[in-house]
């Protein structure tokens, strides 16, 4: 399959990339890992007139912790996230999620920035970022701006990014002691998109009371979904079987899955409940 013709640019600085986006307008798309965009272009579902390849821009691939905030550069490959010692040690949710994204070859190219900026509710990082209460950092002609993750996803392939902005990093606060997080997605076969996916982060204080809870859902809504009622069901009290069951039930009620080849609506709702329960338990285990 062959994409429609386009003009190709490979800027060496973010400034140049942003200028190009500004100049070419809506007809330009960013090429990052390319493993969502290029397949769409080959199928002619997308035919941008200009492709702006940002892979040659240095300084966009990093994982660091600064002043209690973890910062990940947009060009960080999924494979790097999967194998990073720092993340394995402190945020095993990244191993959980990356090992379920596609396959090893795709992970060598796919980037976390692209995974988020593509605006696809079927991608896995959005739910994780909801659970971690992350902030997107975008760079445009006016410089950098921050977008809280809850204000980032608007709909099918639509995010808060303006056409002349590039997602340059994602950051989230280091959670307090007593925190744990976990992600799992149910899939028909290895490498598939989620039938349903659930990310959970929670914090338990010294008395076992849940002081923070973040729960994000993958591919069961038009946009990545925060399970707000589920979070509230856990907060302010010790986590019990009853509160977990309540959280699971609320999530299955509040999501909006579509019946498709991955399962019926009823099945997906049921699986959301199962995964919410399992991921809460896993997060608690890791919090200890």
């Amino acid at each position, binding site marked *: 399959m062959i994409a429609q013709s386009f003009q190709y640019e490979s800027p060496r600085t973010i400034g140049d990339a942003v200028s190009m986006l500004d100049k070419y307008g809506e007809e330009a798309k960013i*090429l990052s890992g390319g493993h969502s965009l290029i397949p769409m*272009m*080959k*199928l002619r579902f997308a035919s941008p007139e200009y492709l702006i390849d940002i892979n040659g821009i240095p300084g966009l691939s990093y994982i660091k912790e600064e002043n209690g905030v973890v910062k990940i550069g947009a060009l960080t490959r999924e494979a790097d996230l999967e194998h990073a010692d720092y993340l394995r040690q402190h945020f095993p949710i990244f191993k959980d999620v990356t*090992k379920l994204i596609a396959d*090893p070859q795709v992970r*060598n190219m796919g980037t976390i920035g692209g995974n988020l900026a593509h605006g696809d509710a079927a991608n896995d990082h959005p739910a994780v970022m909801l659970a971690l209460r992350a902030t997107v950092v975008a760079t445009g002609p006016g410089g950098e701006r921050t977008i809280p993750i809850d204000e980032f996803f608007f709909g099918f392939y639509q995010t808060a990014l303006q056409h002349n902005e590039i997602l340059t990093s994602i950051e989230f606060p280091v959670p307090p002691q007593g925190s744990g997080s976990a992600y799992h997605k149910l899939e028909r076969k290895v490498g598939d998109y989620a039938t349903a996916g659930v990310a959970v982060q929670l914090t338990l204080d010294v008395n076992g009371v849940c002081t923070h809870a973040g729960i994000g859902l993958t591919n069961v809504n038009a946009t990545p979904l925060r399970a707000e009622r589920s979070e509230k069901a856990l907060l302010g009290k010790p986590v019990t079987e009853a509160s977990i069951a309540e959280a699971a039930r609320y999530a299955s009620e509040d999501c909006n899955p579509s019946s498709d080849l991955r399962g019926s609506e009823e099945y997906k709702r049921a699986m959301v409940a199962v995964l919410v329960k399992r991921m809460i338990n896993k997060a608690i285990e890791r919090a200890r």
Partner: protein
Amino acid sequence: MNKTIVVTVNGTSHTLDVEPRLLLVHMIRELLNLTGTHIGCDTSSCGACTILLDGKSVKSCTILAVQANGRSVSTIEGVSPEGEFNSLQEGFKENHGLHCGFCTPGMIMRSTELLANNPNPTEDEIRWGISGNLCRCTGYNNIVKAIQYASAKNRGVEPASTEPQFV
């Protein structure tokens, strides 16, 4: 508007004039006549197009030739000198790791990075490690054995016997 790119393929530098939309797999197969790299699904699922780009295994059907500008590509044709087998090729031969052979170049290129990163993988790590490569013929078990064979050979250890086991 064509672009001029310089790509090193199996150690040889090539200067090529390409359309930006030319896929890396088409550059390899049609401009360079290296047809060992195969197009199976053309949708990034099957891995038959797997090559190494600067040592990383990637699906060349989902990469543009222009993205390889200034970089090095390794294909199946380059894994061993003419007339010889490397340990992976020997492993696939000795363990009957192929029937039709269509997935095999991709399997070998992927396994090359797998073993480079993890010289002594467990069976589970091998199976997860080749999860991006589909085989319609073998049922994967002999492919896993082939990779274990190569891992042993690379480490200077006697590989498991390739005699059939009757249970």
